[in-house]
């Protein structure tokens, strides 16, 4: 690794290496990110799924599809609000928790967030138009105005992932004598070596997750005996999208792992718990790395790690011990990253089986599989995917320890000077607030589902579907009593008042 390593590992840095506020700061970052990331798949991919369903409804005059698209929009409206506020907290946390990182590196890697900011602008505008346009806009106008939405979402992801991949493989600057970055080349700082692999793996993960989660909801209904066209369509469309992407994600996962091997060798050593640099390295499935470098438990497969990394047993894999002990993840951190990685790969592989099962039944008799077991698995797949997303980020972030900027800045150098007491207190407040907000969010969603189910169970009670009534007609929610409009003769037409 670069000479800066030696520079930063000098004794003063060692002394200051674990300020008391580091732990609460990390826990807070991890907690808020882990919460936000649960909503991101829906922010990125739910608009696309909804638009697909919307298109089908408009194209074929399919009332059921339009109803689904409308209901998904109603869900999106709530989910987007929670996504926005939890995301805003993250932006604040860069300053509240890691002022050292932003102060030194902000002008090197911050630009990605600039792209993100205007992508969010577009996304927020488009989503408002889409969500609030159902009633008044002409059907196809409405659809076309919504169509750029997935692109804006992918653009937003571009910014975030550019920033994160820069933290993993920082470049685009040189260090002056005082260790401060100069000669910033923005293009290099945005398109870092990890950017491509991370971006595609991430983007596909988001579509996959959203697809399986949405399909899972209808799989549960199916298992409970609601086997109408509504549930069939609500299941099949998102599940098909996710099933097609599953093998793609498998290959992208394999390729990002190899990028990590080449570009972040110490992280790779942590993910695969490789202690000494060697050839013919075995692969451990799970297992625990002890502080003396031995491994307890786990399933050992000889040679496989070297083969996976370089396609032949003689590939040399860098071990953790190739750098000083305080320049690499601790054995506990390595074990955490390793488990997260293995769980991700395991679930990814299991999802492939599920996708194959679906494909097989579809090719054989053009129908959904009949087995209840298939639907049970499909119902779990969504939750498993969310879990996998968490695992992926834990591999990325914990595997990078103790660096916040890989081999350029330690987490302990970036952390705020605010005392640990304040941080723990704040963490307590944040956890309480998030638990309440996410709990209320879920409760609201479940209530919406109940209302829809009741309406579907007694179709006459809810009146004719909107399409038969006045398609997209203006039937505003009535004012709560009092003062009818009227009288205002001088009121200008329109709203340019």
């Amino acid at each position, binding site marked *: 690794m670069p000479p800066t390593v030696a520079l930063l590992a000098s004794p003063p840095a060692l002394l200051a290496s674990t300020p008391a506020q580091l732990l609460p700061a990390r826990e807070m970052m991890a907690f808020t990110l882990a919460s936000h990331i649960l909503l991101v798949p829906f922010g990125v991919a739910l608009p696309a799924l909804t638009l697909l369903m919307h298109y089908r409804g408009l194209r074929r005059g399919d009332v059921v599809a339009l109803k689904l698209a409308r209901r998904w929009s109603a869900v999106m*409206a709530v989910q987007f609000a*929670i996504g926005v506020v939890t995301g*805003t907290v993250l932006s604040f946390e860069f300053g*509240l928790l890691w002022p050292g990182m932003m102060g030194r590196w902000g002008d090197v890697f911050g630009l990605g967030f600039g792209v993100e900011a205007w992508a969010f602008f577009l996304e927020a*505008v488009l989503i408002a138009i889409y969500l609030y346009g159902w009633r*008044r*806009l002409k059907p196809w106008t409405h659809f076309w105005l919504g169509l750029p939405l997935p692109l804006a979402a992918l653009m937003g992801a571009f910014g975030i992932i550019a920033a994160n991949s820069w933290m993993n493989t920082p470049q685009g600057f040189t260090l002056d004598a005082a260790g401060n970055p100069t000669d910033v080349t923005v293009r290099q700082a945005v398109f870092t070596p990890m950017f491509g692999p991370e971006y595609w793996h991430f983007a596909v993960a988001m579509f996959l997750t959203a697809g399986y989660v949405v399909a899972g909801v209808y799989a549960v209904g199916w298992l409970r005996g609601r086997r109408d066209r509504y549930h069939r369509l609500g299941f099949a469309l998102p599940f098909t999208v996710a099933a097609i992407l599953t093998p793609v994600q498998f290959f992208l996962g394999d390729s990002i792992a190899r990028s990590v091997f080449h570009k972040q060798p110490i992280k790779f050593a942590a993910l695969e718990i490789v202690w000494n640099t060697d050839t013919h390295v075995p692969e451990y499935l799970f297992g625990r790395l002890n502080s003396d470098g031995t491994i307890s438990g786990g399933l050992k497969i000889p040679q496989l790690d070297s083969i996976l990394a370089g396609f032949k047993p003689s590939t040399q894999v860098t071990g953790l011990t190739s750098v000083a002990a305080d320049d690499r993840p601790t054995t506990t951190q390595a074990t955490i990253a390793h488990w997260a990685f293995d769980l991700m790969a395991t679930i990814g592989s299991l999802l492939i089986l599920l996708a194959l099962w679906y494909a097989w039944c579809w090719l054989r008799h053009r129908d959904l599989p009949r087995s209840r077991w298939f639907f049970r698995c499909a119902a779990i797949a969504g939750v498993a995917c969310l879990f996998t997303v968490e695992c992926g980020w834990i591999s990325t972030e914990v595997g990078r320890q103790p660096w916040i900027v890989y081999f350029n800045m330690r987490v302990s150098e970036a952390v705020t000077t605010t005392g640990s007491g304040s941080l723990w207190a704040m963490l307590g407040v944040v956890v309480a607030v998030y638990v309440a907000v996410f709990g209320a969010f879920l409760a609201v969603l479940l209530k*919406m589902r109940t209302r829809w189910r009741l309406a579907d169970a007694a179709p006459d009670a809810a009146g004719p579907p*909107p399409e038969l009534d006045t398609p997209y007609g203006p039937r505003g929610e009535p004012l709560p009593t009092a003062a009818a409009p009227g009288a205002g003769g001088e009121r200008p037409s329109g709203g340019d*008042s």
Partner: protein
Amino acid sequence: MADLIAWVLVLAVAAYACAGGTDYGAGFWDLLAGGAERGKRPRWLIDHAMGPVWEVNNVWLIFVLVLMWTGFPAMFQAVFEALWLPLALAAIGMVLRGAGFGLRKPTRRLAQRRLYGAVFAVSSLLTPFFLGAVLGGIASGRVEVGTTASADAWANPTSVLTGLLTIGAVAFLGAVFLCCDARRFGADDLVGYFRLRALLALAAIVVVALIGLPVTHGDAHYVWHGLTRGLGLLFVLLALASGAVTAVLLLRRSYRWCRYTAVAGVGLTVFAWGFAQRPYLLPTSLTVAQAAGASATLGWLVIVTLVAIVLVGPALVLLYWMDTHGELESLTDADTGAAPAPGDNL
């Protein structure tokens, strides 16, 4: 280049103060709207007026933060270290505000609506106060590179006054916009209701500002002087004029332009502060030039800003146009086909 970015930053702050401020103001009036029955109609209006746009308005804040850490990393670090507590509280306030607002609408039970509404309204009051206190802390010169977090940085006369002024400003903006929205939605009784409140808020601003004049003279010396001479003074006078015009328009019940004059009043005030602080980002210790990030990055920031203007500008115009022309309406239970569930009482 750094100066240009600094002005973009001031512009973004002004935009957030106006756009986001209007939403905070709506929350403020939600808080004061009274019990469930009495406050039903104002709350209904607030829901309808804010619904489509508050997420967009929030992005201005993200833009401010990005400009700060990308353009002026040293300033970003100093501000977030020194003013840790009010910023942390503001962040939590934002979560509660957005979540409370987002969750209130799809709720069909009175008790829950009350709870979410209260969360939304109270945090709409506290968040702008803390953000204002942060600005006050900066303006009074209490933040320097290396200042560690302390209560003095934000619990001081200038901060408290700026916090109160911010609440006044958002309440004023909120009331003016709701007044016009009430006309748009045909709720004529609410026009007078919010007209009165807009005037009251304006009066409150004037009172706080008058109290603030002597207090900040010693406490925020540099900015005080900047505001009382040169371009700073010019913008203060323009802001005052806009406020006065708004008051006249409201008194004469001519609502066509009062939104624009209200926005101008708040926006010009932010610009006046920008002029008063020149050439400092953190008076009187860190200038724009000293805080500026790498020049290549600043160049790209200009490009990013231009792209934003080209791309986001029209989209924003479209959204506001559609919103003010009543093209945007939220989905109702009839649209999604929902029946009342047991326990629903709204």
